[in-house]
């Protein structure tokens, strides 16, 4: 499976550039990201390991409001593949079909939660040098779909997560976990939703 690990590094670099860019476009206030507290990582030791394990075809997809986002998919798929490989739930992992026909698909859809014009509010925060704060919540709906070898009915699981971004003088939601950067917040969110999907799938009675 040829996933592009280099892309993750480029992503970090671009994110740094993005923060600089944001100051240039007039915001003037650095956003402070917080990962929603309701979903934490599930350690792989808690997964219910099958015996024997089987190879699996893995497909990952990132969407923005229900629409395919090939660029984000390309950047993030290596991280998801790495996490699935370390889960201990499967044998070899491939983007191509595998012997036995097992297929695991993971889709993360980035959705708006607050439904507000966040850009307008953010500009207000910038123009007041952060005295007027803004909170924006981004939601993520992650779906896991696993077809076991020889099975026709998939195991389907869903988890939801959120990242809250504070711009200017605004308190985060209670219990929200501060991240040093937006990139780390997104990484944490993705790892947590995938760990929950894998855990839920592994404990499904039909999992093998």
């Amino acid at each position, binding site marked *: 499976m040829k996933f592009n690990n280099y892309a993750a590094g480029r*992503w970090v670099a*671009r*994110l740094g*550039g*993005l*923060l*600089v*860019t*944001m100051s*240039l*476009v007039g*915001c003037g206030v650095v*956003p402070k*990201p917080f990962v929603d507290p309701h979903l934490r990582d599930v350690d792989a030791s808690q997964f219910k390991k099958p015996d024997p394990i089987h190879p699996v*075809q893995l*497909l*990952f*997809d*990132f969407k*923005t*409001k*229900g*629409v*395919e*986002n*090939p*660029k*984000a*998919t*390309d*950047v*993030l*798929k290596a991280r998801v593949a790495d996490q699935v490989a370390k889960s201990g739930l499967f044998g070899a992992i491939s*983007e*191509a*079909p595998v012997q036995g026909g097992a*297929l695991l*698909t*993971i*889709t993360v859809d*980035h959705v*708006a939660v607050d439904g*507000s*014009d*966040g*850009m*307008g*509010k*953010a500009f207000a925060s910038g123009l007041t040098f952060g005295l007027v704060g*803004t909170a*924006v919540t*981004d939601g993520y709906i992650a779906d896991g*779909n696993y077809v076991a070898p020889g099975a*026709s009915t*998939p195991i389907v699981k869903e988890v939801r997560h959120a*990242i809250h*971004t504070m*711009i200017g003088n605004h308190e985060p939601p209670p219990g929200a976990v501060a991240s040093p950067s*937006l990139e780390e917040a*997104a990484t944490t969110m993705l790892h947590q939703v995938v760990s929950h999907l894998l855990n839920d799938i592994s404990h499904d009675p039909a999992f093998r």
Partner: protein
Amino acid sequence: MTHSSGFSVARTAHIALVAGLGAMLLGCASQMVQPTATPSTVQSLRTANLTSARAGTFALAPGKDGGLDKSVSMRASSLEPRTGSFSQDLRDRIVAELKASGLYDDASSAVIDAQLTESSVDTGISQGNARLAARFSVTRDGKRVFEKELVVESVWESSFIGAVAIPAAKRGYEGLYPALANKLFADPDFRAALAR
């Protein structure tokens, strides 16, 4: 297909908006990404009971401006094909979906061809839109068994701010490729043409 973009600075900073933003503000061109199979399309194709096929000739439709196949402009920025032409990028997308579904065979007598007929983006001010269209055909054992032009369109909330509008336009346009592939594979006539 409807595609509305996030408008907040926070969303701008999220994964979906990250790619290429710095370059875009400098007026640079960026490239399409290498296609990977779409889960929903593969799930659908795996149960469709189709015969294996191969991709044949994908090219710009006759009479169309050559620039249509080479670049789409988005204000001061542009998006260019990864392979040198959008029609070849579309071919790669079709191949990626078929391979992941176990339905691609280089030696198959069932051949999918396509002519790119539309490729456009309008970043807009309050609303952006993009369109992609191709005339697909399927030949089996030398006989044409399917021919149809398929169109997909994406509409999203845009902005007068380029830092928001351009990434949204790129997402909106690039997302049309998996959408067009999915539309082809879901077409009942296409499925009849490739039925086992």
